[in-house]
């Protein structure tokens, strides 16, 4: 199994350009997530999906859109890139499992995409 993969690994954009980041997982996970990682800020959730065809906003959704047309893929789009979106983007997936009526999950992360917006 490849686990969680992300394409591209690196990208440089000019302000105003658009792009799509692709995340794919082969673990049949229901949940998928997009985070951004910035120095001193930790990981912040952008959008997430609890199943095919559903998406929801996270902590920092502005300037991003997502789609989950297939269970194994979760796309993150930037319609008009801004320098503030320079960051490392991580995708993750999970399949929440239950124990004694409680749920917990382990999120599996992709290798990240380093995006620079000039």
């Amino acid at each position, binding site marked *: 199994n490849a686990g969680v993969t992300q394409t591209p690994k690196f990208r440089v954009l000019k302000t105003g350009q658009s792009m799509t980041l692709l995340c794919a997982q082969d673990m049949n996970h229901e949940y998928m997530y997009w985070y951004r990682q910035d120095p*001193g800020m930790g990981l912040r959730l952008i959008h997430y999906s*609890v199943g095919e065809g559903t998406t929801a906003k996270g902590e920092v959704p502005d300037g991003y859109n997502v789609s989950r047309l297939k269970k194994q893929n979760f796309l993150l789009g930037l319609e008009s890139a801004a320098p503030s979106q320079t960051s490392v983007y991580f995708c993750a997936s999970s399949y929440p499992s239950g124990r004694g009526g*409680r749920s*917990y999950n382990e999120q599996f992360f992709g290798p990240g995409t380093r995006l620079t917006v000039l």
Partner: protein
Amino acid sequence: AQRVTQPEKLLSVFKGAPVELKCNYSYSGSPELFWYVQYSRQRLQLLLRHISRESIKGFTADLNKGETSFHLKKPFAQEEDSAMYYCALSGGHGGSQGNLIFGKGTKLSVKP
């Protein structure tokens, strides 16, 4: 509000010394706590979860509900432990089930 606080941005210790990475949380219900680790140029990976009460790579973490803490400890640090460590919390309910709230991370540097 749900919050995870890691008070130290950087923790530097010598090889063989004990290490403790602090994590405090704020949550109104019964949280599920995790420690994730990110080695240089690698992806984040799960290190520990409190529900498993396990020891991984010599690290342990105990959930202290009275002090709302989940500190990560290791009695003898190794150079290969140098990495970024993130504490994370999950509320585990509702539509956002499974969402993790991360602390800002602590960079551990183990010197030879």
